[in-house]
């Protein structure tokens, strides 16, 4: 039986004048840009959340996914000067700057020899001094050490940077990385697409069209990707909706082409420690929950919405399972980027804690691989 809105949720939505959107979503119709802005202007996060929950339950019932993976950030030396970043160092030799040797990186994988993980997540700074072969060798070395691991790596920003730096097309970069062992792309680097905000946040990063084109190319090559949005810094509600609508349009295209596609959208909460936006207050839990809910409602063609607990905090991540999210990411080992920005969450959650988090929320945990196959009993 298809889930429907309860009468009380319908009444709650009517109270705030969103009954037309409740109708649209119930009928499976697409929400417009204007609808998205209206949703962001609404304070009643519970009602918007209940509507998002309808979509979530229609897609996934109670199922809630997680995985176990290893994060490798091979270097934090980065030419880009994004003002929200606490991780990057402009040059080698600066305080806390590092670049792993291949042996270091592989050592991290080897250290987990006996651990059940299914994925390595690799994202790096835009290092001006490394040859392209550093990355292909990194991939080969990781694959050789653990051929059973899926490698999800390199944001569109990195792909774009390599293309420019080494004089290759996006496709050439992607093909070379894939031949070396890359399986799929993460969704990072999208930040906010709208040029006004993007110029302020990360003026020297790939622009929206470039980001989308990298993903389009990956999809054409049959690769899966994810997508993200950095929310809660200087962007407006309109710019958030614009961002979601652009992602949705790309996904329409890729679904029509029938090869690769975006699997998961991950809203990333801005953190304000140790970066140039420290004066800005970090977004509250209310904003996080609302953004997750509206993402679920707007991105009707992206199957999964992930609550990245490292950034949202464990409590908000748990509650978000009733506000549209169906994925809690994983038992991440060795997360650096958000901890350098002041995230207070633990660096890794043991699997049993993650399972408890899901079951005590009244949902059903499923351990997945990168492609959302069930891979172990939860």
């Amino acid at each position, binding site marked *: 039986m298809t889930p429907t809105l*309860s009468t*009380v949720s319908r009444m709650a939505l009517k109270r705030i004048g969103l009954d037309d959107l409740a109708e649209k979503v119930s009928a499976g119709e697409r929400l417009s840009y204007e609808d998205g802005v209206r949703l962001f202007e609404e304070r009643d996060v519970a009602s918007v959340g209940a509507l998002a929950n309808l979509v979530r339950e229609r897609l996934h019932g109670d*199922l809630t996914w997680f995985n176990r993976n290893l994060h490798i950030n091979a270097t934090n030396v980065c030419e880009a000067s994004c003002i929200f970043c606490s991780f990057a160092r402009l040059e080698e030799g600066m305080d806390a700057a590092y670049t792993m040797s291949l042996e270091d990186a592989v050592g991290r994988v080897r250290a987990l020899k*006996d651990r059940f993980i299914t994925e390595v997540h690799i994202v790096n700074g835009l290092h001006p001094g490394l040859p392209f072969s550093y990355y292909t060798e990194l991939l080969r070395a990781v694959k050789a050490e653990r051929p059973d691991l899926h490698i999800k790596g390199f944001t569109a920003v990195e792909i774009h940077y390599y293309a420019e730096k080494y004089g290759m097309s996006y496709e050439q970069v992607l093909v070379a990385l894939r031949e070396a062992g890359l399986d799929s792309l993460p969704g990072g680097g999208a930040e906010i697409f709208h040029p006004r905000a993007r110029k302020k946040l990360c003026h020297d990063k790939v622009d929206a069209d470039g980001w989308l084109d990298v993903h389009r190319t990956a999809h054409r090559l049959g690769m899966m990707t994810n997508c993200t949005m950095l929310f809660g810094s200087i962007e407006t509600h309109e710019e958030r909706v614009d961002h979601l609508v652009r992602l949705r349009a790309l996904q329409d295209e890729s679904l029509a082409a029938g090869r690769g596609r975006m699997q998961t959208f991950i809203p990333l909460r801005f953190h304000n420690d140790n970066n140039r936006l420290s004066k800005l207050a970090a977004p509250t*839990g*209310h904003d996080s929950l609302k953004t997750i809910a509206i993402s679920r409602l707007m991105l009707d063609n992206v199957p999964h919405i992930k609550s990245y607990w490292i950034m949202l905090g464990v409590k908000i991540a*748990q*509650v978000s399972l009733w506000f549209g999210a169906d994925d809690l990411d994983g038992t991440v080992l060795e997360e650096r980027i958000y901890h350098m920005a002041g995230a207070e969450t633990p660096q890794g959650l043991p699997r049993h804690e993650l399972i408890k988090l899901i079951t005590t929320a009244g949902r059903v945990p499923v351990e997945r691989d990168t492609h959302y196959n069930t891979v172990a009993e939860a």
Partner: protein
Amino acid sequence: MATPIDRVRIATVHFTNAWPLTARLDHTRFEVLHHHPAEAARLLREGEVDLALLPVASVLTDGDYRIVPGVCIGADGPVQSVLLVSEVPPEQWEVLALDGCSRSSAVLAELLVKQGPLKDRVPTDLTIFRTEPGKALEHAVGKGAALIIGDPARELPERLAERIDLAGAWKDWTGLPFVFAVWAGRPDLDAEVIDELRRVATEGLALREGLPEPDRTYLTDAVKYELDDRMLSGLRRYAALGAERGLLGTRDVVLYGPRVQAYRRTDLDTLLCKGAEGERLSFEEAHRLHLEAPIADLGSAANLRRWALHPTDDVTYIISRNINYTNVCVTACKFCAFYRPEKHREAYVLTEDQIRAKCEELVSVGGVEVLLQGGLHRSLGIEYYEELFRFIKSNFPLNLHALSPEEIFHIMKISDLSMEATMERLAAAGMDSLPGGGAEVLVDAVRKKIAPLKCTTDQWLEAMRMAHKMGMSSSSTLMFGMSETAADRVEHMMRLRDLQDETRGFVAFICWTFQPDNTYVKPGDNTAADYLRVNALSRLVLDNIPNIQASWVTQGPGVAQASLHMGCNDFGSVMLEENVVSSAGTTFAMSVADVERNIREAGFNPVRRNAQYDHVGAALTRENGRRAPAPAT
């Protein structure tokens, strides 16, 4: 779905090691065919069976199969029944015959010989070939070697002195166990069948103990049947290595997933509407909502109720100070990290000067209430409290929110007074209201477990009744998340509601979760969803208590913000001190500016209140977070 008439067809193998997984199959439900592994794989591939005990090579190569979770045939080290055998050591081998009856073992042998530890031992020109099922052994003569699997491997002629156990060699090489076979089948198989196979395995494995030797030892020690994380890791490693050398297909290792839960929701609709409209819910109805209503819907109903009771954008909070006048306590509750025995070096009783300083500081930041709570000290009787209360009331314009029922009982005991006399004297000394602390869960069976020395439910309620009668107001509380059930929580709410019908003395209700400090997760982190559920339910059940307070101290500001849209109309207090909860690990300390910002960001208008929930002033900060120009107090 399988019915007794429409039996599920399964293929299994006739090896001893498969026996425990199939011995207890119900033949009225399953049609069971016994074959060698390769034949079982063919039957599944061609759709002649629904499910098979399948060599893993076939799982990874043949089709879109799913694996039954939890069960396998594997080994973690030597298994005795999958061997490379020869009359001579590997260095002298010229041919290696791989028995065609199991592709999984053949691929394993090839991996070990071409890439693994045997690579450096066998001659580079070793000829490897496959034989018909059961025909490999005849090649193991002279400088020939053979892969032998299953029961034949356990009954080998003595001339074959060189024996290499493949599962043992795999373990030495990778450090991982090896999976030989799993139950695998079509992706759409009914979940009941999966459950049944797992049940059959559990029962069958229990039969091993009764077997004669050497089978008993072989099946209990050498063969491993549990498909756990390490087994799955071994399987994935094998899959990846095999795929890389083109020996195996590239299918993912995918388990049958849990069932998407059935939708259980529609008939709750009426009940939720009833709650949202403010009609009184019975115990049974409230209990059912607790157990079955989705958080989203409970939240919507509570939100409607909140707006009906408080049709304004205002969200109140109070500036208060928790003064724990002593931490000496005779009670020793299991969940309390605050108390100290009298002789402990950290034991204290605050002096008048200390209390004066705390009150002065409170008044200077716009505080309107002092929350006086402490341990049960054996030498503090009613005179101490009267003096303390008169001192505070005569010197400061503060509401005196004081004492849990426990402390009242303690005073009665120390000073040998009736409850009525005690309450009367405390009220006369200036006590204005009582926090609802010490209520925990108002069910005696639970109280006995979590706080055996505390008062009974009836005593607690009696203290509140008496306080209300003397004109004092109080809050009511629920601390949950210990060993109580949903029914206990609802019972608790019923007891509060009954007393409120009688006295109308409760001005507010607040629930919070027990804060343990012993997990990887920040204390109490996995209680946030449950908190929102219980909180929303309380708004529906406590139809006669006007205000519901959010607990950001235990839940963090974000969850508390959400609760403002799910039943709460009050954001608690800005506390200058919060000793009790913080000794158990959790504090979300917030300033006035933080509290007002969180209220605003949630879409509301922050307003300061007193203990009676009267408004006492506007926000102290402006929208931009700066201090408001002339704070009205």
